[in-house]
């Protein structure tokens, strides 16, 4: 009997190596769990049975914006319904090469635009800890799948916090890697100066293993670079010599729930006990100006990236009359509200007369945010804060108010704009729901994040199985 709720990818690898189980049996066990629990959670848009017999490794779930050859890939948008890629994304290919069978494609906010997975054109995903609440987003399908034991590990994507925030809300581990370390070839693009692919796992060690599989330069993506050092699987259970900075503005921002702060404080106390030096630092303007800066840069890039959906080469086509009517109706019928809002916001911010005041100014704010982070890292190795200001909120609570939804990423956005890696690990419960701890590192310092995350994870002893499944 395979307990998919408890089994980590590392334990599953051990079972495969000892011959206790075959990859096909593992695959079957997860699909059985999906049949059992996913009608309620809706983490998957589709599951895959084919290929399980050829797989030799631990199976994986992929967010539905990762192209999978022959397997429908929609980015949870009606405009891509029925689209079957004719090639694999580099990360899908690397998973295949490593022997990882494809369990299925996970739900998400349409085009990764959202923080609750409610913007999916195919219905929302629910939080495995409490199905009346959202899993976070946009990679809510991937994080809910891992939390509910429907996949041992998964890949998500993170533009403004779309891996870190849902990982926090679902009580799992999520890494947004350093910009440029993981290929985006074959990924449905949202905001290209920010999009990153990263792992969603139950443990930090699983996260390091999956990161090792997907990371590294890809000749098909000219924005990628070689890792400066190999990935190290974390072993140490202490934090001796590590300098942890606690940015005041990231920890005292308006809207952070007291229950969230309390769990983060507990984790910081543990960090001190494990030998870390903990001190306060400042990011004077990064939090205040991060969100406005992001909501100019990301929609501007989105308005350009999403211009490709024109009803000509793939995807939906509607509209009668001339080609112009076909474009306008295809796009209006195919995109949901959030992509439309962002396309229009971006088009406006880039249009004649506004470019310098909006997009140009936002790019300068981005430089200021980078510089503030660089200054903080002169004194510290890791910066720590809550990942999300709140625990999982109720379905429907923010759907009518775009600005309230955008605020969910208040604490993840600043370091994303600076291109820095961020790890979210579960650090406790508030109101019976998981709280995430965000660890931010210097560029290419994933090994430091794995070390800190692993030691804290051991000391925190968080039980990642949702209480109602135990």
């Amino acid at each position, binding site marked *: 009997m395979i307990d998919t709720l408890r089994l980590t990818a590392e334990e599953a690898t051990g079972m495969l190596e000892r011959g206790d189980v075959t990859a096909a049996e593992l695959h079957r066990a997860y699909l059985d769990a999906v049949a059992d629990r996913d009608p309620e959670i809706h983490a998957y848009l589709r599951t895959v049975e084919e290929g399980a017999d050829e797989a030799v490794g631990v199976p994986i779930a992929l967010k539905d914006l990762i192209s999978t050859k022959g397997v429908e890939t929609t980015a949870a948008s009606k405009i891509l319904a029925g689209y*079957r890629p004719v090639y694999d994304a580099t990360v899908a290919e690397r998973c295949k090469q490593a022997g990882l069978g494809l369990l299925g494609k996970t739900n998400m906010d349409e085009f990764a635009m959202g923080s609750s997975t409610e913007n999916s054109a195919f219905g929302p995903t629910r939080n495995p800890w409490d199905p009346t609440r959202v899993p976070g987003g946009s990679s809510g399908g991937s994080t809910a799948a891992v939390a509910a034991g429907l996949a041992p590990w998964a890949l998500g994507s993170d533009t403004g916090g779309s891996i870190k925030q849902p990982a926090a809300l679902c009580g799992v581990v999520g890494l947004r890697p350093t*910009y440029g370390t993981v290929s985006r070839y074959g990924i449905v693009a949202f905001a290209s100066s920010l999009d990153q692919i990263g792992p969603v796992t139950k443990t930090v060690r699983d996260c390091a293993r999956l990161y090792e599989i997907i990371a590294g330069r890809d000749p098909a993506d000219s*924005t990628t670079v070689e890792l400066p050092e190999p990935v190290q699987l974390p072993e140490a259970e202490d934090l001796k010599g590590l300098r942890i900075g606690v940015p005041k503005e990231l920890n005292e921002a308006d809207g952070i729930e007291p229950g969230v702060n309390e769990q983060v404080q507990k984790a910081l106390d543990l960090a001190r006990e494990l030998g870390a030096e903990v001190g306060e630092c400042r990011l004077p303007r990064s939090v205040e100006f991060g969100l406005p800066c992001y909501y100019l840069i990301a929609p501007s890039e989105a308005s350009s990236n999403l211009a490709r959906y024109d009803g*000509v080469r793939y995807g939906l086509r509607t509209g009668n009359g001339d080609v112009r009517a076909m474009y*306008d109706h295809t796009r209006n019928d195919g995109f949901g509200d959030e992509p*439309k809002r962002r396309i229009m916001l971006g088009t406006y911010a880039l249009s004649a007369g506004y470019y310098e005041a909006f997009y140009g100014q936002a*790019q300068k704010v981005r430089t200021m945010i980078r510089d503030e982070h660089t200054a903080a890292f002169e004194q510290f190795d890791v910066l720590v804060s809550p990942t999300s200001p709140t625990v999982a909120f109720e379905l429907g609570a923010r759907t009518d108010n*775009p600005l309230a939804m955008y605020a969910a990423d208040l604490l993840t956005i600043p370091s994303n704009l600076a291109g820095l890696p961020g790890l979210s690990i579960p650090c406790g419960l508030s109101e019976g729901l998981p709280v995430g701890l965000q660890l931010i590192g210097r560029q290419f310092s994933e090994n430091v994040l794995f070390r800190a995350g692993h030691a804290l994870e051991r000391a925190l002893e968080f039980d990642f199985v949702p209480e109602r499944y135990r």
Partner: protein
Amino acid sequence: MAISRDEVLHVARLARLALSEEELARFSEQLSAILDAVGKVAELDLSGVEPTAHPLDLVNVWAEDEPKPSLSVDEALANAPDRDGDSFRVPAA
């Protein structure tokens, strides 16, 4: 910073979106609120600060100009909404 219905209509035309009347009204209101919030970036005096377009210090990534295997015509047309031989078919301009 309010954005008028006419401005939203203009932006929707630029973005190739055939918005309904109901959408025009709703998006005018929502975009005004969002523009108010993001307009905050104007408060900062950042004259002399260089813009950041991309967070890595990468410039000019070169590749050899060599032919490599590519998609076949059938693969490239596999998802076409309307195909005519080796071409995508579209309504008249």
